[in-house]
């Protein structure tokens, strides 16, 4: 028979003042299984824990109940005390008589005492059904997969690799670098983006612990934390990277011109190309959608001019497999498409451009060699209107959230405009200026003084054409009047939106995403880089819009999480997980359906003792199970139980008072 020890805490006066602790002890002693009960001033103190340790040995106790504060407070402390006395720590139950009784019934001592007695009885009853549980250890494969080679992916990969953990970095496009590689200068310091990014890109390429797989996508991820298996599809580049020297003869000679994605279609690239001059790896790929050789079998110029003979028109997509232990997802963001703003004439007026297009224009290696030009006539604009919150904070046409970076980059743009076109004038239509960040507000103030840009607080209602000018009509809410600005160029500060592939990726990885398509973190405050699926972490804008410093911090945080996960050869895990009694499992597999962590899979077991015939049952991978108990409650056969919260434990509680 169970031998339960009950330890009732005074918590100084916190408990003792509002309920009769000795009476609780007396009542508890009446319970058949209780062999020892005592009270003490501070059970969590060292002498208090000593009491528990001594009683365990002296009275040969089989389970312990501590009646004190909330288990969320000191459960770990008392578990440790049990461990120290050589007892399985999970034989502990805590009766919460402080938060649930003494503190909330301060005016009714009798009722509080009665309630405390009942709570103790419940804890005793539950503890009788407690079982010895042991920490779960899961072996880990010490290799990380980083999806996305933007600044987030680069930073995470470098940090993990620096800890001598192998990293597989998969990038969708032919080069790493991401959006940051398209930027000219960065706020608030106006560092040259390329200058600070490219050394990191080179580091990635040369790092002995990083395997860079460009022009590839993850197509499957199976397994669980520490033991994932990823399938990666390397898209056919038609260029043998091993032999290619990156000399550039091919793309100079290629006759096919295609809108250049890197410059957002503002100029042309060739069908065989590297996205930009500083690309890493600096090897070209053939754009199969436009290459006439691949499309029609005619041309073949690149193969002719390639001295090392690196061109291979027969190349096929290739699927490779990597065993990995953790995943960092850093797929970045998409610029929001402003087409819904029809009243601005988006799509009709060539001289309305997006901020990223402006960024490319003012970039020294951009399509206009660093000078902003009107796309319609190539003239240098004098009056430039910047409109903020295009898509952001707009429930009707765009998205509800604030994209966080637009205020700052628009400020930067007014400065860049001022630098490049000295006699220009910038008008900025804005809703609010959100400049929360180190040096941000100062940056905005300085920009306003230096550039003498006109800031107009209000929305633009219409843009129409008058001659070759764009008439921007909006409200200046500060003077309460409609204003019209004659603009040469309009720059839309488009919102940051989630990559459109994110839902597919989330499904593939088995993680969740929010209504906008951003991947969901496990907890918005306390677990912002983890996902609900153990071993998968999030870095950068794929989780929510953020600026570069934040992205880099999050990437490094991911790296720290991965390193922590890989710190030992095995991973330790809370044993409060579900287990299946296969004897009772009827194999309906409903549990697989409701498990949010895909912790349940099918298994084949003999139909009876020693039988060769097999039947299908569910199997719970304890390495993945997080212990929510969804499967337990939906299992009609009652074949599943959740350690620590088993049916007998809870029902014991219910019938004990």
């Amino acid at each position, binding site marked *: 028979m169970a031998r339960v020890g009950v330890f009732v805490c005074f918590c100084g006066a916190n408990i003792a003042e509002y309920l009769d602790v000795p009476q609780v002890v007396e009542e508890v002693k009446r319970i058949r299984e209780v062999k020892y009960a005592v009270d003490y001033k501070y059970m969590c103190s060292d002498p208090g824990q000593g009491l528990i340790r001594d009683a365990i040995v002296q009275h040969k106790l089989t389970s312990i109940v501590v009646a004190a504060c909330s288990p969320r407070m000191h459960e770990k402390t008392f578990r440790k005390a049990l461990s120290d006395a050589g007892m399985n720590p999970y034989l502990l139950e805590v009766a919460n008589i402080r938060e649930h009784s003494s503190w909330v019934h301060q005016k009714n001592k009798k009722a509080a005492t009665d309630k405390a007695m009942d709570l103790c009885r419940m804890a005793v009853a539950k503890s009788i059904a407690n079982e010895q549980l042991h920490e779960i250890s899961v072996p880990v494969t010490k290799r990380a997969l980083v999806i996305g080679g933007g600044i987030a992916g680069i930073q995470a990969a470098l940090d993990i690799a620096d800890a001598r953990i192998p990293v597989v970095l998969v990038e969708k496009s032919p080069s790493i670098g991401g959006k940051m590689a398209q930027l000219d200068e960065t706020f608030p310091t106006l560092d040259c983006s390329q200058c600070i990014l490219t050394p990191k890109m080179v580091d990635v390429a040369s790092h002995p612990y990083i395997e860079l797989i460009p022009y590839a996508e993850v197509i499957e991820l199976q397994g669980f934390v520490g033991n994932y298996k990823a399938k990666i599809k390397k898209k056919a580049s038609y260029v043998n990277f091993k032999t290619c020297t990156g000399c550039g003869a091919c793309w100079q000679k290629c006759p096919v011109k295609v809108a250049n994605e890197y410059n957002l279609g503002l100029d042309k690239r060739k069908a065989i190309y590297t996205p930009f001059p500083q690309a890493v790896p600096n090897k070209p790929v053939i754009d199969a959608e436009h290459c006439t050789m691949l499309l029609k079998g005619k041309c073949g110029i690149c193969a002719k001019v390639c001295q090392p003979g690196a061109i291979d028109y027969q190349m096929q997509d290739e699927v490779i497999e990597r065993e990995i232990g953790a995943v960092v997802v850093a797929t970045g963001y998409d610029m929001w498409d402003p087409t819904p703003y029809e009243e601005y004439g988006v799509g009709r007026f060539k001289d309305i451009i997006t901020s990223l297009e402006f960024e490319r224009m003012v970039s020294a290696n951009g399509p206009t060699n660093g000078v902003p030009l009107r796309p319609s006539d190539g003239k240098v604009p004098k009056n430039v209107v910047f409109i903020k919150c295009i898509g952001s904070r707009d429930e009707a046409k765009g998205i509800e959230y604030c994209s966080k970076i637009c205020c700052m980059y628009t400020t930067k743009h007014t400065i860049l405009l001022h630098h490049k076109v000295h006699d220009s004038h910038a008008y900025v239509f804005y809703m609010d200026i959100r400049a929360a960040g180190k040096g941000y507000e100062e940056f905005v103030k300085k920009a306003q003084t230096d550039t003498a840009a006109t800031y107009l607080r209000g929305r633009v209602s219409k843009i129409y054409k008058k001659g070759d000018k764009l008439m921007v009509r909006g409200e200046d809410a500060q003077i309460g009047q409609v204003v019209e600005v004659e603009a040469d160029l309009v720059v839309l500060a488009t919102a940051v939106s989630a990559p459109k592939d994110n839902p597919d990726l989330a499904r593939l990885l088995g993680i969740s995403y929010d209504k906008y398509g951003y991947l969901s973190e496990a907890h918005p405050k306390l677990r912002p880089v983890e996902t609900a699926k153990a071993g998968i972490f999030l870095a950068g804008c794929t989780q929510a819009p953020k600026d570069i410093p934040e992205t880099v911090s999050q990437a490094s945080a991911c790296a720290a999480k991965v390193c922590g996960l890989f710190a030992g050869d095995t991973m330790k895990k809370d044993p409060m997980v579900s287990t299946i009694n296969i*004897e*009772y*499992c*009827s*194999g*309906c*597999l*409903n549990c697989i*359906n*409701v498990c949010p962590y895909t912790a349940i899979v099918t298994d084949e077991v003999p139909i009876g003792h020693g039988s060769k*015939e097999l039947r*299908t049952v569910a199997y719970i991978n304890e390495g993945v199970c997080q212990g929510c108990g969804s499967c337990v409650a*939906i299992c*009609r*056969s*009652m*074949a599943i139980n959740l350690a620590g919260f088993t*049916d*007998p434990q809870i*029902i014991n509680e219910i*019938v004990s008072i």
Partner: protein
Amino acid sequence: MNYTKQIQDIAAKLFAEGKIDVFVGYRVNGFDDNQVPALITDPQDVPKLVFTDKSVFNLVNYLKSEHTRRKRVGLVVKGCDSRSLNLMLTESQVKRENLYVIGICCEGVVDETGQKMQNCVECAVPDAVVSDELLGTPMSGSLTLTYRVNADIAKLSEMPLTERAAYFEEVFENCIRCNACRHSCPLCYCAKCCIDQETATLYNGANTTSSAFHALMTWSLHLAGRCVDCRNCEKACPSHLPLHLLHKQNESVIYENFQEHLAGVIPEDRGAFYKYSLKDPDDFIM
């Protein structure tokens, strides 16, 4: 409705071609004109098979029997039966390839007194939704989301609480806990019913009214969103308890609040408790 001839022919053919090991159909019970299930393994017994409007029992129940397990089975199913078969398939209890299903477009069956059964009057899915061969003329049209309100539920819901409590107390009092309901239900196939497991017997092991309440509540909740209204349970009940009330109540709640399809109509649909919608009603929660 008489498909005796067709079913006999099909069964004979299946036996002759060696496609089945056992055929599950109906035969006349031998003392009046009512019918009982017939599990036929010998082709010689095929002429005993019948099918008329007295073919009441849901034969899918026999797919959990040791006589059919891991055998190739020929089976006759009516509309409601086929829905339970659909659920059995979805819940991996039987393998489709082991079955040869004769679906019936059912015009409704009658009880001992010759009256059309209530569930047949209210039936929304008369045609078999799973079959290898369909007998009769299909009549259901669009099957999804058809739902007919049960008159008993409406009546009882309007009753004052006290009266309803008294009515159901009588129901649970008259339950003898023989478990015929559960054993007759094709969807109660658990290796060991949770009500027979220690967790339950420790507190509800006796055959008291309280235990009957516990058992029937648990049972009906386990069938919520799955019950196909074949009334096998009600016909099996030696105390003639109105068991359909519990199922119909759950069905109406599920239909009205979650807009779910009828149980077993859609293949691979596991029932309302195994999925959720963000739009589920939230107003009953503080």
